[in-house]
């Protein structure tokens, strides 16, 4: 079983388009959407059925005004600006429990709170698909990413060859969590200044994990000069460019029709198949 994580650094470069295309193309796979802040993959993969599970991401504190003697100690220790006038703002509370432990009158409750849901689904080809939704404004998305991956990977059957992971944007905690156990990372970037900027930061991060990766340049013909620059940078870093996808209305039209690009356009399907065969190729090379 091999695990492929699709990342982008910057949002909106086409990460989910590529993930969904892989998911549609491959057999003997499971698919996991780790973008728990803004889960989009299910819109394209259209699960046939789903089981919902609750996610408890940590604890939160609250003050019982009947027991509180207004000594002010809790406010003085809270470092997250969550405590004002003996009231705790749940959106700011980091769940460290400091106030709860310090309160001399046991006036603070500290309890597990629900911070999201995750779903186990069946796709039309009977494969499993997992995604999650964090409640708005919740932190701890990294922990939810770990949880959803864990639950997806504990039930994997022997016949599963591929695990496709649509990763979160950015380079923070949820990205780190999505990378655990990865065999190969596909980075989807675009030839814009911010695309290149974020690509470089992401590659710095991947170096610390020593995971092999390859780059897909999406909308490559939007700015061929910058595309060349990315290609040169990739060469210097010894990272293969897996393929170039054009700036083509078909990609947006496919999303609007709630379809993966491989269902929508046979030309794009070829491009994606070529990219996938390079993924397999470079993953094998990386074994030695």
């Amino acid at each position, binding site marked *: 079983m091999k695990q492929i994580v699709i990342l982008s650094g910057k*949002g909106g470069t086409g990460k989910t388009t590529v993930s969904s295309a892989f998911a549609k193309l491959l057999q003997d796979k499971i698919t996991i959407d780790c973008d728990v802040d*803004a889960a989009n993959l299910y819109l394209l993969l259209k699960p046939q059925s789903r089981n919902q599970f609750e996610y408890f991401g940590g604890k939160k504190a609250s003050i019982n005004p009947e027991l509180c003697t207004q000594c002010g100690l809790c406010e003085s220790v809270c470092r997250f600006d969550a405590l004002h006038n003996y009231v705790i703002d749940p959106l700011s509370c980091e769940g460290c429990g400091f106030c709860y432990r310090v309160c001399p009158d046991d006036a603070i409750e500290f309890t597990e709170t629900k911070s999201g849901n995750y779903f186990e689904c069946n796709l039309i080809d009977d494969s499993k698909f997992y995604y999650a939704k964090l409640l708005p*404004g919740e932190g701890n*998305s990294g922990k939810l990413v770990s949880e959803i991956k864990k639950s997806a990977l504990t039930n994997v059957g022997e016949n599963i060859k591929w695990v496709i992971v649509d990763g979160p944007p950015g380079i923070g905690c949820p990205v780190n969590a999505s990378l655990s156990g990865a065999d190969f990372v596909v980075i989807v970037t675009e030839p*814009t*200044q*911010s695309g290149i900027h974020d690509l470089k930061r992401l590659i710095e991060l991947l170096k610390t994990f020593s995971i092999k990766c390859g780059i897909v340049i999406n909308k490559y013909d939007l700015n061929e000069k910058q595309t060349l620059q990315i290609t040169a940078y990739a060469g210097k870093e010894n990272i293969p460019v897996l393929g170039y996808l054009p700036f083509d209305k078909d990609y947006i039209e496919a999303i609007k029709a709630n379809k993966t690009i491989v269902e929508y356009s046979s030309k794009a399907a070829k491009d994606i198949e070529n990219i996938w065969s390079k993924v397999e190729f470079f993953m094998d090379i990386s074994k030695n």
Partner: protein
Amino acid sequence: MTISVASGKGGTGKTTVAASLASVIPQSVYIDCDVEEPNGHLMLQPKFTLEESVNKLLPEIDYNKCDFCGKCIEVCEFNALINLKFEILLFAEMCHSCGACEYFCPQNAITEIPKELGKLRSGITENGIKFYDGLLNIGEATAVPLIRKVKAKIDNEKINIIDSPPGTSCSMVETVKNSDFCLLVTESTPFGLNDLKLAIDVVKNINVPFGVVINKYDETFEEMENYLTENQIEVMLRIPFDRKIAEAYSNGILPVNNSDKIRREFIGLIATIKKKIKSNVTQMTQKKQIFAD
């Protein structure tokens, strides 16, 4: 006055909108809180004049005092410490710098040592925009403390434009809360709509007045139009899908510097937002007065 620019989904053109707004307001302050991927500087091209370290505090244990009682492990809610009996091991990336371990250690064996979390950069652009951004160090898990430091640069005498991290997580909430107004940038696709709904939930929740900007606007995507009309959400600006805008963007050129029409639209947008903020403030004071009466 503080206007934050956010979007549920990344890549909708949030930074372009934020930077465009800042460039049409004389003497504005631009604050980039998207500390994982700060891109505002690529569009506004400021000259950086100062770079400061922003630190987080990590516990350090003095083994001349520590008796391995395990209290620090017990109070650490984030499992950042483990007791090896000859060493208290810290997993620095899991530590939220809450300070509980230091406070509760019976032997006073813990001191908190600053460690760099990221950088806060200050600068100024050619046309006089004050520019600040945060740059999270690679591998760091918690952006919120850095965002707080960057937000501290808000200048209440001026108009501040804040570029928020994408998504709807704690970083976005930390950035947007207490703004006078929030612009939510979306695009005419099912992804854009899905994530816009999530973002609207959040801004309503934290009581920040908001309006929507649709980028890469496509009138044939009726689902979005229907949703917006049904929920009486005001669209403040529609920027049509245009390959020329995308190409200019790829070279770091703002649409307001490329098209007079778009420039005028942004000037109109800021005027509308100002009016809205004013009327909100009057409403609030009126409400307060009624309350006081």
